[in-house]
């Protein structure tokens, strides 16, 4: 009955078609999500205690949302190009995504500037501190994703990313989409809270 299964090394592939590293990434995403679940629950708990400053979210967050959505689309497009071995278009897609990713980080920086310009500092009412810490932590993750994408971009030039070798770009795309979804969750959460 086991004749079809690998008898030597490597993962046992049965119903579970996920590559071991892909599963590892999913589990990692769960733990990253728990960090933000913990922080956003903390916001809810703290807000219920009163003495909570309400303010309008900086408008640059709209731009962040737009950039993160566009970057996910362009990265998904790149993934399709990699599957079709269209390396030229793949490079274009990755450059576009990297650019949009940097724009996202820049728009976050602008948002912080907007907050500071109206006198909402990191130190002060916890409601502003929370915003800085949570978006900052998300931004750090986004920065790591930009680095990851840059590594994948470099791999394309070494002919390491193509239809027969999709693992790294698949994992990179998953991580990127996750951070995009996480941003939208955070943005909706802040909209509802403030």
């Amino acid at each position, binding site marked *: 009955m086991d004749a079809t*299964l690998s008898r030597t090394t490597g993962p046992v592939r049965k119903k579970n078609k996920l590559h071991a*590293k892909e599963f590892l990434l999913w589990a*990692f995403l769960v733990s990253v999500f*728990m*960090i933000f679940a913990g922080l956003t629950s*903390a916001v809810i708990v*703290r807000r219920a205690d009163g003495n909570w400053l309400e303010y309008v979210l900086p408008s640059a967050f709209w731009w962040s949302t737009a950039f993160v959505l566009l970057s996910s689309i362009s990265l998904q497009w790149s993934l399709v190009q990699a599957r079709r071995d269209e390396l030229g278009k793949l490079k274009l897609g990755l450059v576009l995504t990297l650019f949009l990713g940097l724009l996202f980080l820049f728009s976050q920086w602008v948002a912080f500037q907007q907050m500071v310009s109206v006198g909402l500092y*990191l130190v002060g009412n916890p409601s502003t501190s929370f915003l800085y*810490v949570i978006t900052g932590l998300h931004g750090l993750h986004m920065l790591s994703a930009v680095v990851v994408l840059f590594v994948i971009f470099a791999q394309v030039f070494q002919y390491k990313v193509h239809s027969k070798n999709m693992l790294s770009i698949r994992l990179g795309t998953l991580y990127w989409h996750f951070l995009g979804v996480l941003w939208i969750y955070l943005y909706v959460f802040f909209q509802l809270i403030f």
Partner: protein
Amino acid sequence: MSHSNPSASTAHGHDHGHDHGHHKETFLTKYIFSQDHKMIGKQYLLTGMFMAVVAALLSLLFRLQLGWPEDTFPWLESILGDWAKGGRLDPSFYLALVTMHGTIMVFFVLTAGLSGTFSNLLIPLQIGARDMASPFLNMLSYWIFFLSTVIMLLSLFIESGPAAAGWTIYPPLSALPQAMPGSGLGMTLWLISMTLFIASSLMAALNYITTILNLRTPGMTMTRMPLTVWSFFTTAILGVLSFPVLLSAAVLLIFDRSFGTSFYLSEIFIAGETLNRTGGSPILFQHLFWFLGHPEVYIVLMPALGITSEVIATNARKPIFGYRAMVGSLLGISFLSFIVWGHHMFVTGMNPFLGNVFMILTLVIAVPSAVKTFNYLATLWKGNIRFTPGMLFAIGLVSLFISGGLTGIYLGNAALDINLHDTYFVVAHFHLVMGSASLFGMLAGVYHWYPRMFGRMMNEKLGYLHFWLTFAAVYMVFFPMHFMGIDGVPRRYYNFTGFEYMAEWMDLNRFISISAILGSAAQLIFIWNFFSSMRMGKKAPMNPWNSNTLEWTAPVEHLHGNWPGEIPHVHRWPYDYSRPGASEDFIPQTVKDDDLPEELRKPSVQPVPHHAEKEAVPTETLLFSRLLQALGFRKA
């Protein structure tokens, strides 16, 4: 060892892609930056044992203070300097000792030392994998843990002393560097060390889960996994879900300490001045902390429970009673552990309704715990018991789990907790049920798998001596604390001489201290036995306990890839002990049904005990089996 002389029969296995373990190895790649899970397991064990010795020494120092509060010990000053001026411990250093003892024991010994050792050693070996899903990540996880260990130990050597806010580091003591001596650099180092520790445990846990789900050998279905692997699996899931939340709590705390935010700090006067902090909530920290903290006690306990299941079944020569109920109770405990954190906070001014909810959920944990206890006892019942040292420690765990667990039912009660909170009753409870029980599980595991790790047997006589002294000492130390707690003696107090109503407990405190010294001395027997047996122990046969699981089918040699030939395939569950009609009293998991006499073939997953053949399958077994089918773990 035989690895210097590879036999011809093993050579054919080398072309199967695991030859990465046979590159020319240096001392560095073999013993230090090893990616072999067996070596990493040993690294965790040795680091854990070292940290246990440190934590025990710290506890002896504060037991000295509690037992003889009026006496001076001039030799203390020569060791501790200003922390023991005139031979008496400094009160804030006393708090630092308690904090570091708790931190080291909970995280460094009973999380990393226990789960790190046995998950690494046993997961690949027991599921028939050549190594972890990511051996590199595994190595990284150990070395980050090692770094966090070094930083935690370094904090013992700074002038202002190590962190002293308790292992739970409640703000404001932990949030204001000027609050007490240990709140400064000591606390900073504590936070850095713990951040590294969290990163390390996350890497390890992600690896364990992926390995268990992806790398099982053909035939090793989820319901054929040994209970040890099940317990490491649920432990790793708890780690992945709860440690990130501690990280969130720590991030906010770091901002409060270093950047002036007020997440946990409200209006505070300190040293005659008003701090510019407003609007924070120290209760918020407790919520975040205990959302990790409660699962953490099961992260500590569950591997010990899994080890005990395996050791008891093997040495009672009986199938574990209620395998599915054992798995179900692990899953139940894991789930419940996330929704009971409020029972640590009954006296924080919590809404009484919320307190009731947490109380009921807490008491529900008694159900899966009782299932486990019952199954251990039922496995022992009429077994052909071999009292090996490992078995004694496993039975010791059951005893401690019962006596410590019962007091949990008292403490889980929101009304009683008003009286018992922060008293020695709590200290007694968690030291028995979490501390000692897990330590016993760890020791059971070391005695049981020592031949698997080092190819030699530990000395049995010394093992018995070690067990009985430790067992007696644990009860002598922690049992009397219940009485002090009921009388209202608070924990974390430097001394009790200033309170008239506590004076009567002076003699008992001294008795506890003497017992603690004796109990710690008994551990020297174990340490001697552990290290001397590496060289002088009796050579162990490949399967010294006549056990069914896969780790005993692999030769004990330095072989990255575990099995010289093909990986073993699995044809049955791991608890086929004493099947009537079989030629031996164990049938290893690798034995095919075809090789057995007719009457022993099927059912191989869960044999019905011979004396209960006519009885119907219990309903909960059926239900759980359906659940596993629905989740895709079993074929319908």
